[in-house]
């Protein structure tokens, strides 16, 4: 595949992808394709894909409906949960509206309780995700993956054959590989493009329903970036920042902007919008494909796991590979697991990797943009 458009145009298109997909989801429904909505990286997409369904991420990213949500939920709750619930309840999110079923996992306490309330007005399939990653946990998680498969078969009156599932695994792996090949362009120093532009593609691509086209498209964008880089087009040399922590998107993009407006460049995202979602593949050749899927998903290094070694493995690897000068962690206010884990991340980054670390706690409002800029600018001045 050849990219004919200029990169800035491509980035802009991806920035608008989420909104453009509002129409696409309606069309899909009209064609009779079922839609499965999900909120989390632990959601085993391949199962839904093998059932012939389209999948879509439902995490809400604006504070528009938080007021509405606070009628049912406590105020001091993570904004991602409040906003997601608010959009669901007020029917303001077309993806939610068109989802035949919403899949939740027992990740953090706030989310799992929220799903209880959500199920009062929507079909919610709650998967029991263990909080540990040992053998017993894997057994439970595998049985949950199979229970989900059986649920979808029943719900959509279809059969998820081994063949379809393996096909889905191959396709999803191809997507993962291509996303990785794209974000790996940031290993170059100086970086070839702005981290914010890369982010637009990472985030926007999750709202493409036609997954088959993603691998070729990502590889083409990566190729174009590489070619332009070879021809001398690149960003100025600036402190290279890795962003870690809670998922970023919409309102919280202010953190990426704060880094890049104040003289840094984001070269890596160790979060659910970035590497956490794409780093590991499912073993395509495994004899027991359910086992392989369960293993892959259970190994996601999110702070809801205790302990959470895989996060540190990935973080450490990325700090090296992307020649990171400083780590910025973004946590959402009232996200206990990530906020608690900041202490360990700080220690790991400063004492084992010997680079500076800062954490910022924020929410979906714009009130703190001034302070956010000051803090991040000061952090960059320190580097």
């Amino acid at each position, binding site marked *: 595949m050849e990219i004919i458009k200029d990169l800035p145009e491509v980035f802009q298109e991806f920035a608008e992808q989420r909104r453009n997909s509002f129409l696409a989801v309606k069309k899909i429904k009209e064609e009779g394709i079922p839609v499965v909505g999900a909120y989390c990286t632990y959601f085993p997409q391949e199962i839904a894909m093998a059932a012939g369904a389209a999948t879509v991420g439902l995490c809400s990213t604006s504070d528009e409906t938080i007021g509405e949500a606070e009628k049912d939920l406590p105020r001091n709750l993570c904004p991602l949960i409040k906003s997601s619930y608010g959009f669901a309840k007020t029917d303001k999110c077309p993806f939610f509206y068109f989802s035949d079923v919403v899949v939740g996992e027992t990740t953090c306490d706030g989310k799992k309780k929220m799903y209880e309330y959500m199920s009062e007005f929507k079909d919610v399939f709650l998967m029991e995700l263990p909080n540990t990653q040992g053998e017993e946990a894997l057994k439970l998680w595998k049985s949950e993956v199979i229970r989900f498969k059986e649920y979808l078969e029943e719900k959509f009156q279809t059969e998820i054959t081994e063949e379809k599932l393996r096909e889905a695994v191959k396709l999803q792996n191809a997507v993962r590989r291509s996303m990785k090949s794209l974000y790996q362009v940031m290993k170059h120093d100086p970086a070839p493009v702005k981290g914010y532009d890369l982010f637009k593609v990472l985030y926007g691509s999750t709202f493409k329903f036609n997954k088959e086209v993603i691998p070729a498209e990502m590889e083409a964008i990566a190729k174009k970036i590489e070619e332009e880089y070879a021809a001398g087009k690149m960003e100025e040399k600036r402190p290279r920042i890795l962003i870690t922590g809670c998922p970023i998107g919409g309102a919280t993009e202010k953190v990426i902007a704060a880094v890049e407006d104040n003289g840094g460049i984001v070269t890596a995202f160790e979060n659910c919008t970035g590497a956490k979602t794409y780093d590991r593949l499912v073993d395509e050749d495994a004899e027991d494909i359910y086992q392989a899927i369960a293993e892959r998903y259970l190994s996601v290094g999110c702070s809801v796991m205790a302990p959470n070694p895989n996060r540190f493995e990935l973080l450490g690897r990325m700090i090296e590979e992307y020649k990171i000068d400083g780590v910025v962690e973004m946590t959402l206010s009232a996200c206990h697991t990530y906020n608690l884990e900041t202490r360990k991340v700080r220690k790991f980054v*400063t004492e084992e990797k010997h680079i500076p670390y800062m954490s910022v706690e924020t929410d979906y409002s714009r*009130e703190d943009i001034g*302070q956010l800029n*000051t803090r991040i600018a*000061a952090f960059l*001045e*320190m580097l």
Partner: protein
Amino acid sequence: MYFTGIDIGSTCAKLAVMDEEKRLILKHVQPTGWSSVDTAASIYDRMKSRGIDLEESVCVATGYGRISVPYADKTVTEITCHGKGAVWIHDCKTGMVIDIGGQDTKVIRLENGQVKDFVMNDKCSAGTGRFLEVMANSMALSPDQLCALAASGGGVTISSMCTVFAESEVISLIGRGEKRENIAYAVAESIVNKVVSLASRLSTGEGPVCLTGGLCECDYIRKILGEKLRCGVIASPEGRYAGAIGAALTAAEYGMRKRGK
């Protein structure tokens, strides 16, 4: 050639001017008021009237209103400036700086004259000058008077961290007829506890603790801060100007670098 530093904070704006030998030749403080732009303009006039020609100087602005200084050559955050200012004032290159500002409280770890790490309070105003101001207001005192009174009080605590709730606690204490010095004591405790918990997020290191910002001349705050941190806390009347002094020093570096080119 002059090096000028302007620190536009949420409550007060500070000016520090240095000569080529990095001697402090002028310092000035005024309330920020409603508009940082107007404040910046009035500081400009002030410098002019003192014979400081801005054509002949390098100017760095800092503080939350730093973007409102049209004649600044450069802006730098208050973290970096407070760090530099403290190094200059106390001639200490390694240590901790605690700045209790109007809206923000920051704790900075210095190593070899450089900012190594820092923390700032989150959105809420507990542990800031603003908190003190609100409480002092509700007791019909000035912040300085409150601090002075606190030294002779004791026995009362304010449990709420939120300024709004804490204020109603103070009002109900007044209503109950609690002695003013005891309430003042509780207010000071509350601020210092919050600052100490902020400081504990930074790894402990060597060197003294320097108190800068508007409360640096308040002996009582300095004393209990030292008790709670279990170390000596140093302060100087110039601490109020630490941000502006740091900005002037940055201007000097910047000016030298430009000239070197």
